């Protein structure tokens, strides 16, 4: 018997979306010199606001503002810089519900995720790095580490505010100033963050936010007065950035795509593993670079795991992101929906078997049901390419060595999952998997104290933890 759930919508009256937004330059909102674009609610296709598209000249102004602010900010004692970051962390907590609702409206993610994951982790991130600001000499990066200068940061649409926090908090703690470009489809929480910077009395120019699309991002990355590039997004763009900064002194951290293997052994606690598989691929509609998008299940338990997985998928509720009972929200954009559809169709055309539970999707907005493919081989495009949607490819294996071989058979290396009761096997698998994050008997866990980042074509550098400081500091004299 299926439970019926009454609608439980979170009120959106807490947010006040303006009809149009400018750029946040030198502590003020200003009109851009370029054109503008619309941001829409992906669950309804309703236009939310007109957003300024920063031109090259706007980006230049932002970088100049950041450069001017760098002098004071980098010389301020770490103790005082820390207080600004603590203030920001507190204001984020104070305005947490507003941020969560706005994030869900602009991004399409379920309110229970923005409320219980994104926003709390954002506040935690600022709180964590605030505490580092006056302790940098103890970070193991030299006795007198120095900030790099102006950081150009370009972030994706899947965790708009969380990615902002991952970028801005360590940069500021280390004494850098920032020009940040949020994703084209999800600029609203970054602009609300700009208001938070104003409320915190953050010195003007320390954080500058330029909205726009690829061209704006390119202008940020390639600006000659940017000392450090931090990018999260696709591997293709990451490679273009690596090429663009070749021969310069710019440092870069690149957080790119993934095709994580989630490996289930026959002795795994099956119910927990099924929860981990579901969380691994359907969290945030699968718009997660570290999503467990390749399930590798040991042949002897494959039938049982699949049966229980399908039953569990039948209970997932897809729909209104603001409903507190929603498990899977809207796909972030029409473009992304097309991409997911295209790759799924290719999966079928290449001979894999597609399955999704019966599921009523809203008539407007961008939606895709939770979907699995079985009979997938390593050559199939759905097993090789990042779908970035709620689509799981299922493969099987017999021995641990085969699991390792298949898991590592990808140009990516961001994350991996292992499910088994045997401790020695967990540690063996963890050492053999070529991935920057290994979740054993859990998945998709994030914490400011825990470094995150990839091997191989998933990019380089780490965000989070003590390692995350290394990306924003240099040794004195270097």
């Amino acid at each position, binding site marked *: 018997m299926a439970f019926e759930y009454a609608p439980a919508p979170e009120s959106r009256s807490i947010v006040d979306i303006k009809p149009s937004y400018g750029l946040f330059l030198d502590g003020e909102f200003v009109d851009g010199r370029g054109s503008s674009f619309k941001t829409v609610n992906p669950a309804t296709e309703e236009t939310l606001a007109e957003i300024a598209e920063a031109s090259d000249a706007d980006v230049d102004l932002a970088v100049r503002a950041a450069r001017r602010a760098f002098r004071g900010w980098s010389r301020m004692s770490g103790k005082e810089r820390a207080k600004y970051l603590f203030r920001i962390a507190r204001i984020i907590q104070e305005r947490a519900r507003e941020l969560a609702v706005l994030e869900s409206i602009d991004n399409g993610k379920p309110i229970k995720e923005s409320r219980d994951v994104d926003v709390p982790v954002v506040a*935690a991130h600022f709180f964590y790095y605030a505490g580092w600001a006056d302790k940098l000499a103890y970070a*193991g990066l030299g006795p007198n580490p120095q900030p790099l200068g102006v950081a150009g940061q370009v972030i994706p649409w899947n965790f708009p505010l969380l990615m902002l926090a991952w970028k801005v908090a360590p940069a500021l703690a280390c004494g850098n100033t920032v020009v940040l470009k949020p994703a084209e489809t999800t600029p609203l929480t970054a602009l609300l963050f700009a208001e938070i910077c104003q409320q915190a009395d953050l010195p003007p120019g320390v954080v500058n936010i330029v909205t726009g699309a690829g061209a704006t991002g390119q202008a940020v990355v390639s600006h000659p007065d940017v000392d450090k590039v931090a990018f999260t997004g696709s*591997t293709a763009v*990451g*490679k*273009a950035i*690596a*090429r663009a900064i*070749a*021969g310069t002194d710019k440092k870069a951290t*690149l957080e*790119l795509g993934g095709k994580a293997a989630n490996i289930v052994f026959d002795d795994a606690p099956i119910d927990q593993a099924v929860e981990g598989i579901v969380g691994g691929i359907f969290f945030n509609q699968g718009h997660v670079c570290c999503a467990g998008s390749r399930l590798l299940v040991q042949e002897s338990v494959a039938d049982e795991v699949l049966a229980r997985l399908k039953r569990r998928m039948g209970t997932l509720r897809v729909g209104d992101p603001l409903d507190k009972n929603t498990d899977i929200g809207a796909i972030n954009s029409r473009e992304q929906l097309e991409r997911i559809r295209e790759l799924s169709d290719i999966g079928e055309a290449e001979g894999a078997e597609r399955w999704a539970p019966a599921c009523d999707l809203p008539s407007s907005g961008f939606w895709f049901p939770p979907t699995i493919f079985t009979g997938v081989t390593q050559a199939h495009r759905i097993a090789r390419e990042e779908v970035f949607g709620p689509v799981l490819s299922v493969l099987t294996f017999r021995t641990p060595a085969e699991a390792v071989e298949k898991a590592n058979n990808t*140009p990516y290396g961001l994350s991996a999952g292992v499910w088994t009761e045997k401790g020695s096997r*967990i540690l063996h698998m*963890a*050492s053999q998997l070529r*991935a*920057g*994050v*290994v*979740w*054993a*008997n*859990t998945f998709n*866990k994030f*914490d400011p*104290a*825990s*470094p*995150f*980042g990839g*091997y*191989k*074509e998933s*990019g*380089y550098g*780490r965000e989070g*933890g*003590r*390692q995350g400081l290394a990306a924003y500091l240099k*040794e004195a004299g270097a």
Partner: protein
Amino acid sequence: MARIDVRKTYKLYIGGAFPRSESGHSYEVTDSKGKFVANASLASRKDVRDAVVAARKAFGSWSSRTAYNRGQILYRIAEVMEDRRPQFEEAVRQSEGVSAAVARGQVDAAVDRLVWYAGWADKLAQVIGNANPVAGPYFNHTAPEPTGVVGVLAPQSSSLLGLVSTVAPVIVTGNVAVVVSSYERPLPAVTFSEVLATSDVPGGVVNILTGDAVTLGPWLAAHMDVNAIDLCGVAGDPELATSLEVAAADNLKRVRRAPDAEPDWAEEPGLSPMTAFVEQKTVWHPIGV
């Protein structure tokens, strides 16, 4: 009648063996005064590819060794080198045109550097790894791991100390190396490869190609099974260095950029030669009863 000496054939070092270049090419190596010394093998694009295959094959086993074992092997390299100091002194003196005393100092420093790195094998993870106090019931730690096959364009000027200073940090952390030696001063590198071959370093862990970084660098930088590259050997040629960085972006190689000029190799290197070629892996596990 004076004895006629038996001269050495200078060859490449790939997969633990000493082949000539598959291209059949060699080039004249002269001493600092321009006098002929030897014909060195001129490594080709195909030799680069063979070396990468050999390195990849060696990576699994070398990276799985205990840090203690890798440290012992690096120390063993130092031991064997120490034993052959006169030969290295002669090679450095001849290659670099320095006095016997300076050459001796270079060799001493190279041996000492190997000993220094040997000691790092089982300490780096303790110094740059972490236990992470996450906000939940999870065991969480981060530790360095080797990044894989590392291309090393060895310094052009410092034929031995510079070579050892760029190769040792790569292998002590569990990586494997494909090295292009100094072009004009390759002979100490060939002698070093003979030391490696007799120091319990498994074949393929270090591969040394004598040849030109200008022609071999692009193949190494563009090779899709090379994970990282040290561009030191093209220091002073920013145009080439930039083009190699661009090629390296094709598979997002970790790049250790070319310095403006070769550094002072006598200085203690610090951690960056090792941290340039390690990945940080974070492992999570729930805590519960």
